[in-house]
């Protein structure tokens, strides 16, 4: 069973006045089939955790370890991490001019699966996945994220999640900028992937509303660069009524 283990992770970014530490000792274990929600106020370092796990060059790991099934994730390049089974659904997916969605999906599926998917089954696979996410087939011929609405971008991220079938999926504020219908469609997509029991999910969010659609097994409160409290789904209800104030006042740092 695939397991992502984050141990005492410290991460800095280069600021105007030298490096600034954002993650200050994150401990977290995500097993295949589990869903963990990471909730926290703005600026607590949630997105930094997501991008650091994916290997974004802006972030420098200064301490700790991340392993996927015992393999050192931090030693891997960005593409190696993805091929090892990590997936990051981004909060702000990037436009890639000149590259069509269909070409992009096929290239990434080929890279992640280690061989080109057979054309006939692939076309069907993409078509069905797009239908489930209520995406127009014409979407496949558009350039990646170019001119996409917020909702289209997030559906496109979840489409990739469904097609790439990672071991661990990190969803970074996938709910932000979605109207209620898009939130439902996207959540259903995530749930389909979860129901396979094949993926461990790290759901990063500021708000509890996505948790009405996706029920987590574990909820972690993130503040000042680390996990400050962990519990079951009931912790989300508590956050809903009480907010993050108790974790931020007095300066958890």
């Amino acid at each position, binding site marked *: 069973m695939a397991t992502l283990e984050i141990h005492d992770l410290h991460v800095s970014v280069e600021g105007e006045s030298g490096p600034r530490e954002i993650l200050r000792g994150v401990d977290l274990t995500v097993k295949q089939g589990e869903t963990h929600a990471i909730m926290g106020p703005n600026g607590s370092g949630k997105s930094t955790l997501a991008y650091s796990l*994916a*290997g*974004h*060059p802006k972030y420098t790991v200064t301490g700790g370890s991340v392993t996927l099934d015992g393999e050192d994730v931090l030693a891997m*390049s*960005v*593409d190696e*991490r*993805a*091929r090892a089974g990590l*997936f*990051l659904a*981004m909060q702000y*997916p*990037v*436009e*890639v*001019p*000149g*590259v*069509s969605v269909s*070409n*992009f999906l096929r*290239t*990434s599926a080929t*890279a*992640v699966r280690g061989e080109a998917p057979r054309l006939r089954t692939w076309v069907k696979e993409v078509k069905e996945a797009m239908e489930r996410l209520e995406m127009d087939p014409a979407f496949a011929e558009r*350039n*990646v994220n170019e001119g996409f609405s917020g909702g289209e971008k997030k559906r496109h991220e979840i489409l*990739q999640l469904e097609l*790439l079938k990672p071991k661990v999926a990190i969803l970074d504020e996938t709910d932000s900028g979605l109207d209620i219908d898009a939130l439902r469609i996207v959540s259903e997509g995530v749930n389909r992937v979860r129901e396979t029991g094949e993926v461990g999910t790290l759901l990063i969010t500021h708000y509890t509303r996505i948790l009405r659609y996706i029920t987590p097994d574990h909820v972690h409160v993130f503040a000042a660069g680390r996990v400050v409290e962990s519990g079951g789904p009931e912790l989300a209800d508590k956050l809903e009524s009480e907010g993050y104030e108790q974790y931020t006042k007095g300066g958890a740092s």
Partner: protein
Amino acid sequence: MPAGAGPGGAVAVAGESGVATRMSAPPSYDVADFPVPHGREEEWRFTPLERLRGLHDGTAAAAGSIKVDVTAPEGVTVTTVGREDPRVGKAGVPVDRLAAQAYSSFEKATVVSVPAEAVLTEPVRLALHGEGGATFGHTVFEVGAFAEVVLVVDHTGEGLRAANVEFLVGEGAKVTFVSVQDWADTAVHCSQHSVLIGRNASFKSVVVTFGGDLVRLHPRVSFAGPGGEAEMYGLYFTADGQHHEHRLVIDHTAPNCRSNVAYKGALQGERAHAVWVGDVVIRTQATGTDTYELNRNLVLTDGARVDSVPNLEIETGEIVGAGHASATGRFEDEQLFYLMARGIPAAEARRLVVRGFFAELVQQIGVSDVEERLIAKVEAELEASIA
């Protein structure tokens, strides 16, 4: 007439307008009419003169050799003529010292004639393979009225090459010209393409520049009668240390003509330098003109440089449309990260982006076997240069 002069006077080329006067000397068949460039002239300011290795100052002797293979379908005649032949120098006069040097130095011109009303299903191919040293060439493509033809010129090998290529496009003819610069990394190639488009004729040019140390092409179009159409496409991939320069002039000399220019280039590596200059002139008499020119560049790595200069001069307001666009974008780290985060290795990610960038242009060409060949060429180039 000076040595190397053509018939002259028969054809109006860009004369006294602003675009023409930006050249440091008026057009001439005679190299002696052009001072040796020093590099600060408008038409030379982007070009590293020392890398022309004497083509520009008369020191490159015509002692090299180039192998020429011509494949022409039945009905097409290929002849070798002297400079006194009336077809030589008719489509345009050399506009800079290099073209004049080529005109003054070539021994025999090749004239490829496509008879009127011939509709050719197979292309005419010229394969030029440089075998080292300097050579000077002159080629005339004479396409008769209402003929349809695809002309393909491939350049490979090494050496210094300066040439003029002329196109006399007869009334109602349809010509597609593909020029591929796939030289070895040491080659230097400078060429003026002079195109004279007849009434209601259409000329499509596809220039593909990958190779060479320095390639400097100068496609120039003018219209002999109304209703003509010019589509000028270009694609270049400029890597480490290469200099690729494309200077276009579309001279709208007749009414109701249309022109469309679209050049796209990708650059990578230290000191890769691409220059694109697009001049469009709409003469007083060229009412009803519709023109657009576009240049897009994609810079893949640090250290590469692009100069992109569109110019539009309009001498009449009675036109359908005139516009231009020029943009240079970087392949951003964020784009690279996004693609790599989907398992795609960095080199493959770059290839994917460049392929997509060029595909948009290739799809516009509208000649399927040319498109296929270009895509294959782009693929091969990408495999070789982005590893």
